[in-house]
């Protein structure tokens, strides 16, 4: 049994091999991860989608949808209403919607919500959602399905959703008369895009923004009020800073239904769309169950609607494998780019947080800004009838569900509308990246353990000779033992005392031991720990700083908050970059030595690997992206010693790489490159400033998203990514003696 026997036995050879080949090995892992990832686009390496949940019974019913005329009528009426009364305002035609839904004998409610904008100077936004519940005739409102449409005013720069509203109402009228519904259907029109959706969901699930303190938890045992006030005071200094929980006040819902099983979000601006884009990416990169995605695609086919996902268009047949492969890769990359930011690309994305499966169907025309698919003009445009039958099929299929979606995959990448890559297939790619970092950490650890200092001081030739000698010594012995398969307990080792080799080894060992003691003494755990703690504290501070920046910016410089936050973050980053190398010198009376820096380096690598794996579990795109960017940095970071002259150009390059990979710099650079690609005709300076503006916006969005919706990209970037960057910077900027 390997665990209970001496593992040191025969491990010297392994260590030597590891030390020699760990760099190529890490490189190989990195390349392997990328190759693996791109292979996944190929048909041989991904799978056909299939229905895992048998209860769905997709497409087994005869379609009865007959609301085409009604839908047209609703559409015209709605457009008329908007043009007449809501031409200039952003308000939602609440009375009209309520009236129409009431006419259909739905239970109609309105829902008010308020947003206290977290980074502004007390701006308040208000909004209203309208929803109607169709009670299932068969059961007692224990489960529900949701059909939702975001309301967009005519003045909005986005495509309208009028056809979606009309289709929803027509479908409501159709569904009203049927007696086979086993789940309530909630028809919901939300205002202010995702804000209304988020508020409605929070109100529906009765989310409490105040978790209560220890004392409130004591219940009836806690009576005295004055000491409560005292305890309140204790944390009040921090409360005002860290209190972002109350920026969205979801209000309360007057009418509820059961637990929501699935939701479909419609974004149709006209019935004459060419094709439907199925959007799946949700908050923090969460995805709906693959069964639902699959269901939508399959039923689109059945109803004669063209459908697509990112770069993959269902009506396009690829001539050869290579084309299909490239297309698969582009589709995967498209999905990943949508997932990375963790921002939902439709209202469906907010449902996922509550464990509700949801997708968005977006109608697109030939001249859609999102892209120009091949042979688009040959497609016959869709109409309300087809859309209605598709919707009917989807809802009747969902109606069959016996339990929540749980069967199929929740973690996947789509390579086409009908091809997917499961978690088991893409995880090796991520694990290889993290494995590279762990191997590097292991080799550093090993070099720390078996510190062969004397060899380093000698010239390379003797070094090599020694190694060869040792190899020769070790190899035959191992083989002997392996052949014999011996497990010897040593009884009288003194018999072998006089052998030369042994003497030599002995001396080395005792030398090593004594050296190790010295080494252990010289490592200051406290300073390493304090440095780590401080660096993460800085990250935490940066996470909470935007509110302060925005306040300062507005008060003293009269700048909008995105500008003040962006420049505030830049100032802080610059400050950190200057100061952080000196942090290592705190808490100690001598400069850090090689062992300490190596340990810091090992910890850095392990933290990076842990971060990669954990991120990848939540959001594979972000995990892969972070790992692919930061693995090279983590591998290149090495402790520099004063004595061994490293070429200054190499060091400079490493430092440049490190600076370039600072989260803020990376973001800005990416945005600049992106805007350069997007607007190639513009002058370079213009593209740069455009990129800077985009970066400002991106940072602002991520902060606001993290405050309102619970998107954790900004939090992870500041509390984990930034500290790891600081530590790499520290290691790169410090030199050690010896």
């Amino acid at each position, binding site marked *: 049994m390997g665990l209970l026997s001496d593992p040191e036995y025969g491990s010297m050879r392994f260590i030597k091999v590891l030390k020699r080949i760990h760099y190529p090995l890490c490189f190989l892992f990195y390349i392997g991860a990328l190759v693996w990832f791109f292979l996944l686009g190929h048909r041989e390496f991904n799978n056909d989608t299939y229905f895992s949940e048998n209860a769905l019974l997709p497409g087994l019913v005869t379609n009865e949808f007959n609301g085409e005329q009604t839908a047209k009528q609703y559409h015209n009426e709605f457009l008329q209403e908007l043009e007449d009364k809501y031409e200039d305002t952003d308000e939602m035609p609440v009375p009209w919607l309520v009236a129409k839904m009431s006419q259909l004998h739905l239970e109609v409610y309105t829902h008010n919500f308020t947003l206290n904008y977290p980074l502004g100077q007390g701006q308040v936004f208000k909004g209203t959602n309208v929803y109607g519940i169709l009670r299932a005739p068969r059961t007692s409102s224990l489960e529900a399905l949701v059909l939702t449409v975001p309301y967009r005013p005519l003045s909005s720069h986005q495509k309208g959703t009028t056809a979606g509203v009309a289709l929803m109402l027509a479908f409501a009228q159709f569904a009203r008369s049927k007696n086979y519904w086993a789940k309530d259907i909630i028809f919901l029109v939300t205002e202010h895009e995702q804000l209304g959706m988020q508020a409605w969901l929070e109100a529906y699930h009765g989310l409490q923004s105040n978790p209560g*303190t*220890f004392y409130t938890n*004591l219940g009836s045992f806690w009576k005295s009020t004055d000491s409560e006030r005292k305890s309140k005071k204790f944390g009040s200094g921090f409360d005002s800073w860290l209190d972002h929980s109350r920026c969205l006040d979801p209000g309360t819902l007057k009418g509820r239904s059961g637990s929501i099983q699935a939701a479909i979000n419609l974004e149709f601006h006209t019935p004459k769309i060419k094709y439907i884009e199925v959007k799946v990416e949700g908050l923090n990169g969460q995805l709906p169950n693959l069964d639902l995605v699959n269901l939508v695609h399959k039923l689109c086919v059945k109803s004669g609607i063209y459908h697509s996902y990112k770069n993959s268009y269902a009506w396009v047949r690829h001539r050869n494998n290579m084309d299909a492969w490239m297309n698969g890769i582009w589709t995967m990359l498209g999905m990943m780019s949508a997932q990375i930011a963790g921002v939902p690309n439709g209202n469906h994305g907010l449902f996922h947080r509550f*464990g509700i499966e949801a997708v968005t169907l977006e109608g697109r025309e030939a001249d859609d800004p999102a892209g120009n698919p091949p042979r688009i003009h040959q497609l016959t445009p869709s109409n309300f009838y087809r859309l209605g039958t598709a919707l009917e099929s989807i809802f009747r299929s969902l109606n069959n569900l016996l339990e929540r979606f749980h069967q199929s995959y929740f973690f996947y990448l789509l390579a086409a509308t009908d091809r997917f890559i499961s978690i088991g297939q893409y995880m090796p790619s991520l694990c290889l990246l993290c494995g590279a970092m762990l191997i590097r950490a292991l080799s550093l650890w090993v070099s720390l353990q078996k510190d062969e200092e004397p060899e380093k001081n000698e010239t390379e030739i003797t070094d090599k000779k020694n190694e060869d000698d040792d190899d020769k010594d070790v190899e035959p*012995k191992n083989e002997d033992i392996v052949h014999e398969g011996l497990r010897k307990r040593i009884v009288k080792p003194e018999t072998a005392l006089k052998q030369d080799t042994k003497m030599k080894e002995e001396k080395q060992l005792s030398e090593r031991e004594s050296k190790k003691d010295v080494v252990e003494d010289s490592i200051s755990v406290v300073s390493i720990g304090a440095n780590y703690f401080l660096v993460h504290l800085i990250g935490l501070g940066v996470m909470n700083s935007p509110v302060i920046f925005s306040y300062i910016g507005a008060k003293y410089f009269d700048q909008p908050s995105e500008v003040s936050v962006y420049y505030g973050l830049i100032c802080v980053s610059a400050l950190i970059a200057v100061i952080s190398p000196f942090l290592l010198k705190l808490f100690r009376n001598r400069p850090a030595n090689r062992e300490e820096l190596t340990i810091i380096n090992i910890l850095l690598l392990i933290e990076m690997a842990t971060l990669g794996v*954990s991120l990848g579990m939540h959001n594979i795109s972000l995990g892969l992206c972070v790992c692919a960017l930061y693995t090279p940095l983590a591998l290149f970071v090495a402790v520099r010693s004063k004595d061994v002259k490293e070429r200054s150009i190499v060091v400079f390059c490493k430092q440049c790489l490190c600076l370039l990979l600072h989260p803020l710099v990376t973001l800005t650079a990416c945005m600049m490159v992106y805007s350069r690609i997007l607007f190639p005709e513009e002058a370079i300076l213009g593209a740069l400033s455009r990129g800077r503006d985009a970066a400002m916006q991106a940072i602002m969005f991520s902060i606001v998203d993290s405050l309102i919706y619970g998107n954790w990209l900004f939090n992870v970037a500041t509390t984990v990514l930034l500290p790891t960057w600081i530590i790499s910077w520290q290691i790169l900027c410090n030199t050690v003696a010896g």
Partner: protein
Amino acid sequence: MAVILKYIVAGLVRYWLIHTDYWQTLSNRVEIATPLNSWKRLIEGIYLYEHKINPYEGDSFHESPLLLIFFYGVLKYTPYLLPAIFTFMDILTAYFLYKTASIFVKVFKNSQRKISENIATDSKTLLLSDSQLKEVPEYVLSVYLFNPYSVLNCVGMTTTVVQNLLLAVSLWGSVSGHRLLACAFIALATHQALYPVTLIVPLSILLADESKGCNKCSYIRTLLVFVVCWGFLVYISAYIMDGSYSYVYNTYGFILNVPDLKPNIGLFWYFFTEMFEHFRLLFVCAFQINALILYIVPLTLRFKDEPVLLATVLIALSSIFRSYPCIGDVGFYLALLPIWKHLFNFMQQKFIVGCAFIITSALGPTVWHLWIYSGSANANFFFGVTLSFATAQIFLITDLMFAYLKREFTLKHGSSRLVDGKPAKLVLR
């Protein structure tokens, strides 16, 4: 001075964390609070007790009646002191561990002097110098005070804080030779969580070593005192519950029979959710034998010369294999490891174990969130992570034991491992 500063900082951190908004989240985490030790259930039991309902009739409360009475009194009269009491108990635990370690160091020095003639000449460097030994108690203290596991355990206000205190006091009592104290506290700990009963073996060895009289008499005396104490506690508890022994089913019975399969970091819940009902008894017995009895005899035979190591290993094993483990238990035995700092050089799997601890500690909450809140992952993910956490702990323990043997061997026979000119392989038997 530095020591006092450590106590103060650690105490303030704990006290402050209890008062933040995260307290609620922390005290409900599965990794921290189990059905056995959670603060929520304690409050529930006390509430029932206050309203003259027997808390053991339901299925919510499984703490011992002694703790029920104790916390009932505290809650009734001084509820505002509770955070301070928990913090203080944890600090006290650290203090007793510190004391234990410093006494152990003295004992260790003596025994090292005693065996110094039998040591091979080339292994003299392995003997520990005074300065090295002096650091040990401080390491123990720091590890207990600043280990995130024990900090979180204290902040979650679980009854494991009390358990750790009892264990620490009994360890200190036995190392310093206070038989009654050690036995009384180990009986208290046993009364609370049952698994510490295994510790009576290393404790009686320690006490016998200390008393230097007839070994057998000492063993018997220790055992007797322990049994009397335990019996007394059982009786007192019944007295508190108005003479009824029914609480036994809901405390010991609950621990042994594992009826509550709420996920935790242990190995029981997953197996028993999958188990057919009629095999349950068989597997419960198998699992409990593994946790309670299996390792005592072989380990005692092998490590009877080093009872503190035996105690460390038994505490660790029982906190890995017990039915409702939590990270508070892990934090406690991790704090005992620095006592064996001199063995670290002989340990082989430090890196693997360290990586596994870090990665599983980050991944566990991640997959838990994905499973429970996002509804996208499932139980297998979480169990996979907890299983690797348990594996890492087992690696750590076996590695520690093996390191001890290797050091012992090296001391006796010198650092070379050659038999007839060939390297030989050591096997743990």
